[in-house]
């Protein structure tokens, strides 16, 4: 793999340079909330952060997105599709957990159905990863085979080191973005490559939380019905925090605005909401918390692997941090492994 190094100072210069040709999306502060947002200048890019409150998915699969606009007049209906991105984008500072989640979303949006709007954003975005040097207590990416210090899903991968960063060039698309400011980068010496790989190894060791998901899907195949779901669901508030801050949750709704002119839009939806499975006639096959909580965990740990052979969790730990009632997916995985569903069913 080709490597380069860049100083902290030059990183800002490179980011400023690429804004001439790319839209730059990077972690930045909105009051005190760290979010991926478009920034016009490198000065607004936050480099010292654990992770963003919302994952990067919003930039490929926005919370609310126009699909097309319509206008009816004199018996004629004009439909104008949403235009593709005006400029290519660089998405800077994505952690390995979120990078992995984008490849999981690819299964959904780049599968049998080719989702044009997602694919346009995906094809025209350079993914720049940033290794985690100090995982948080809620991080468990390692449990899903993700390394906090590297990611094959990125076009460019940055590892922070003394005074700067080592850059792994992982695709042509990435190299092209790097070359917009090629002079800001230098060739690393052997010591620097070694330092970066040591840092990545240390980050992996620093992961405190782990759980073993092997065999969880197979166990869950037998326990759609289990009193376990009755036991864990009462505390759930059925708000949508977990689904909206989750980098792999991807359920959406489609609506039209009403009137002679308007738009069709799609927006995130949540299996935690009461109206999520409400049928036109009023019937709701998931009427209580039990069915909704079960759905969320079965989707991540059984249905998604059924379809795509991978779990729909990347161990980013956001739901562990933000759930108001501390619903803990690592605990649920442990319970499944520990035979709790089986025992509860007896």
């Amino acid at each position, binding site marked *: 793999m080709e490597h380069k190094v860049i100083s902290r100072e030059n990183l800002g210069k490179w980011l400023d340079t690429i804004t001439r040709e790319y839209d730059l999306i990077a972690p930045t502060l909105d009051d005190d*909330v760290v979010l991926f947002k478009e920034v016009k200048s490198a000065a607004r890019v936050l480099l010292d952060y654990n992770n963003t409150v*919302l994952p990067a998915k919003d930039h490929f699969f926005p919370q*609310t997105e126009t699909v097309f606009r319509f206008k009816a007049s004199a018996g004629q209906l004009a439909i104008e599709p949403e235009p593709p991105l005006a400029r290519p984008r660089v998405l800077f500072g994505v952690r390995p957990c979120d990078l992995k989640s984008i490849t999981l979303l690819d299964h959904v949006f780049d599968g049998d159905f080719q989702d044009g709007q997602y694919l346009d954003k995906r094809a025209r975005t350079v993914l720049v990863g940033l290794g985690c040097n100090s995982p948080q207590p809620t991080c468990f990416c390692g449990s899903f085979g993700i390394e906090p210090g590297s990611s094959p899903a990125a076009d460019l991968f940055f590892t922070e080191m003394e005074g700067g960063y080592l850059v792994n060039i992982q695709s042509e698309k990435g190299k092209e973005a790097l070359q917009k400011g090629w002079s800001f980068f230098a060739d690393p010496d052997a010591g620097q490559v070694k330092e970066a790989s040591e840092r990545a190894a240390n980050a992996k060791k620093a992961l405190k939380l782990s759980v073993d998901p092997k065999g969880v899907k197979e166990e869950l195949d037998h326990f759609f019905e289990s009193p376990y779901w009755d036991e864990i669901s009462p505390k759930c*508030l059925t708000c949508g925090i977990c689904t909206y801050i989750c980098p792999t949750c991807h359920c959406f709704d489609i609506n039209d*605005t009403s009137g002679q002119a308007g738009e069709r839009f799609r*927006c*995130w939806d949540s299996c935690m909401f009461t*109206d999520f499975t409400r049928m036109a006639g009023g019937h709701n096959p998931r009427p209580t918390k039990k069915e909704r909580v079960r759905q969320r965990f079965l989707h991540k740990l059984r249905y998604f692997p059924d379809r795509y052979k991978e779990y729909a969790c990347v161990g980013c730990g956001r739901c562990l941090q933000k759930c108001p009632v501390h619903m803990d997916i690592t605990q649920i995985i442990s319970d499944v492994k520990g035979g709790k569903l089986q025992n509860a069913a007896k």
Partner: protein
Amino acid sequence: MVAKAEAMPAKCRDCDYPNPVLSDVLIGEEVQPRQITPQDRYAEVVELESYKREAKKDYWDKVFDRCIRCYACRNVCPACDCKECVFDQVEPRWVSKAVNVPENRIFHITRALHVAGRCVECGECERICPMHIPIRKLNKKIAKDLGELFGEQRPGTQLDEKPALGVFAVNDPEEFM
């Protein structure tokens, strides 16, 4: 080590009801309540009130813009008790599922006004908001206005007290009539 004051949620730092107002059994000793003056209690609200109309709008639009409408603030609220919330209602759907400033504004203002006079200021809404929306400011503004109109009440602290908006008195202010 983290100082206690730093680790405490903001809602606890300005809480003047550290002891349960009603209990059959109280575990532990009663805590001396902090004396919080109305000036301190409403300091943030008074500051916002001093903003010009446009600046107020800009302030709230900026924070409402990042709301993801997860509804955690509503679901955790002890005063929210509608069997079917207007924001979940499908027929008709009053508020679009689209997340944008106008829809978010309607959500927050409706939520705040619907708990007016019943909000016990537990502050859970703000504590759990993943997007750090200053929800307590809205609640406090309404509490302050209610106090000025109907006399200061602290909902949830007096069992025999009727909420200001739940009763009618002939001397209620009726500026609009």
